[in-house]
């Protein structure tokens, strides 16, 4: 086992395309880091550079302190699970798992015992002699994992390994991979575009966009404190609602003006975002998480409120997603639109409908009665709001 460190790593393709720019990322020994971002963000390229399947244009990549920029893939002691598993179709499950050992000339008797152990561990006993073409998606996924595990490598690299599975199997395999990683304690770099996988699986999450690392940290920290509009919108499902607003400094406390609404900002909001208390008339982008918009009649009546019309209710069992049209200014600055549009496409569309107004998505308890078409007051705890600069898209949070 070993740590993996990207130090100012660039990837520039011969046609000049910059796929990864100045990537600095540290994956601690035994850690599970998830690289997440929309397609084309450079996350797979970053992973393939670690595997040795892509040349590194600039910077240094080290495993366990040793710079491996020019080391052959086979000599890096990493194992990779591919998106389509890349199981050798002409070999049986046993032979597939044994391949990395045979390729590195491990003695025959040891190959057999190690492969048997992995087959037992992954519950593939009944399929050892079958070819990959005769296995189900979940079984193939397990064989691919087996091929990675059997080598006992320093690092696991996984490239969207669950994307070819159906929803139910994905949830099951997600848990299995996490558990296996914890048992084996092997440093893991995992690439996905699915933010649920990113939130649930890793001890560290790294969000990328257009080849640039946007933010890295514990998944919950990133969720609670996104560094910019892109991360804010990309992480979390349903996505954060973004609204253009103005901060006015009149009276005792700063007031957030959203369309017709005036929301007094809680002292905690100002403490977290000191920039809000500086200039009156400052334009900001406000971000609201679905769980921070409460149904009317919630206990604390003094909370700020946003009034809107219920456009759609999606029941989810224990909860319901309530889409509320709020008379407010959508976020239209070019920079912001571009950044936000790069994130979760559906959420992006929901936020910016053609007409005036913003569609906010709130999660309510399923027992709250909500009528489609009715007017509703959303109680907003302003200390939970996120504030961003409309020109740069960066968070206004202090520190």
């Amino acid at each position, binding site marked *: 086992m070993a740590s993996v460190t990207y130090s100012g790593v660039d990837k520039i393709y011969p046609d000049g395309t910059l796929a990864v720019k100045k990537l600095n990322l540290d994956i601690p020994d035994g850690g599970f880091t998830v690289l997440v971002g929309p397609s084309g963000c450079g996350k797979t390229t970053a992973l393939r550079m670690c595997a040795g399947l892509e040349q590194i244009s600039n910077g240094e990549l080290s495993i366990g302190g040793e710079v491996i920029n020019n080391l052959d893939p086979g000599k890096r002691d990493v194992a990779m699970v*591919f998106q389509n598993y890349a199981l050798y179709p002409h070999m049986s499950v046993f032979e597939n798992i044994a391949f990395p050992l045979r*390729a590195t000339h491990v003695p025959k008797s040891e190959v057999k015992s190690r492969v048997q152990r992995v087959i037992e561990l992954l519950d593939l006993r009944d399929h050892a002699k079958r070819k990959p073409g005769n296995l189900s998606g979940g079984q193939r996924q397990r064989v691919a994992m087996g091929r990675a595990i059997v080598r006992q490598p320093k690092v696991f690299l996984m490239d969207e390994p669950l994307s070819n599975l159906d929803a139910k199997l994905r949830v099951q395999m997600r848990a299995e991979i996490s558990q296996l990683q914890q048992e084996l304690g092997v440093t893991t770099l995992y690439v996905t575009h699915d933010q649920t996988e990113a939130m649930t699986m890793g001890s560290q999450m790294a969000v990328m966009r257009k080849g640039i690392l946007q933010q890295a940290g514990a998944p919950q920290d990133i969720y609670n404190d996104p560094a910019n509009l892109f991360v804010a919108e990309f992480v979390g499902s349903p996505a954060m609602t973004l609204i253009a607003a103005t901060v006015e400094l009149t009276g005792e406390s700063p007031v957030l003006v959203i369309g017709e609404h005036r929301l007094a900002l809680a002292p905690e909001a100002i403490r977290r975002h000191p920039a809000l208390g500086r200039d009156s008339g400052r334009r900001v982008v406000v971000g609201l998480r679905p769980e921070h918009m409460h149904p009317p009649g919630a206990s604390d009546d003094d909370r700020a409120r946003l009034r809107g019309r219920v456009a759609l209710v999606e029941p989810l069992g224990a909860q319901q997603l309530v889409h509320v049209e709020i008379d407010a200014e959508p976020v239209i600055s070019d920079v912001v639109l571009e950044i936000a549009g790069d994130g979760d496409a559906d959420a992006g569309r929901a936020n910016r409908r053609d007409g005036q107004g913003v569609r906010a998505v709130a999660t309510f308890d399923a027992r709250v009665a909500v009528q489609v078409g009715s007017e509703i007051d959303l109680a907003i705890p302003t200390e939970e709001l996120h504030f961003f600069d409309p020109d740069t898209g960066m968070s206004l949070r202090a520190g």
Partner: protein
Amino acid sequence: MSHFRYTPRTFLRECSMVLIGLIWLIPFFLLINISLKPGGFEVYGSPFQLPSKPAFGNYSTAWQGSAVGSLGHGFVSSAIITFISVFFLIVIGSLTAYTIIRRGGRGSRILIVLFTFGLVLPVQLGTIPLYAEMHELGLIGTYSGMILLYVGLLMPVTVFLYAGFLRSLPPDYEEAARVDGASPLRIFFRVVFPLLRPATGTVAILCGLIIWNDFFTPLIFLGGSSHATLPVVIYGLVAGLGTEWNIIFAAVAISIAPLIIFFIFAQRQLIRGYTGGIKA
């Protein structure tokens, strides 16, 4: 309950297909029919008329061969040249195409163009310089010379077939093997080559048939040697006057027998090879 498994429509379709299939059998019928005719005037009669008395002895006469050599000898020569040439075509052709396709770049593009030239240039154009060169090297009338010639002549089509297949082969398998620590040759022979089986089947059949049936090249380059191939031995049976066509037909029937037997046993595999892709 009826056990008749056809509807009128499918029955008609099946019948018409059987009839069309029969058309393909006509040449075989003529071949066998004439090969069994006792000789004399009967050979020049209607080819569809059955022999008055089947002359199975024609086959043993044909087996004696001609002045060029016996049919058995021709068989051995044809088999040696065909099998060894096809073996080298497959090994060298697949490795060449793999390197060209996976390496990419300008050099690869130039090589592909050169091989394409080789594909369109008629062999006959180069016969005289080839003959002179091979004579110089002492390769005329030898198995090795013939094999070298065929491997060279058929390399463009082999590389072309493998290259087309390799382009559609996802590189993931090779990448997985590289990360697994396999050497380039191991990657090729253990991972890539088995996946090329459909292309290998096509190359083996196509090149095998071309070499087995070829008359012109062995006539020129093996002329006068004791290594004459089947078509040349059979041609030796053609005399200026009084050619015994029944004997020649018997010789032809013997010469195509191994191919037909091969097709009967391997047809399922061959069809799969032509039509099947890769099952992951």
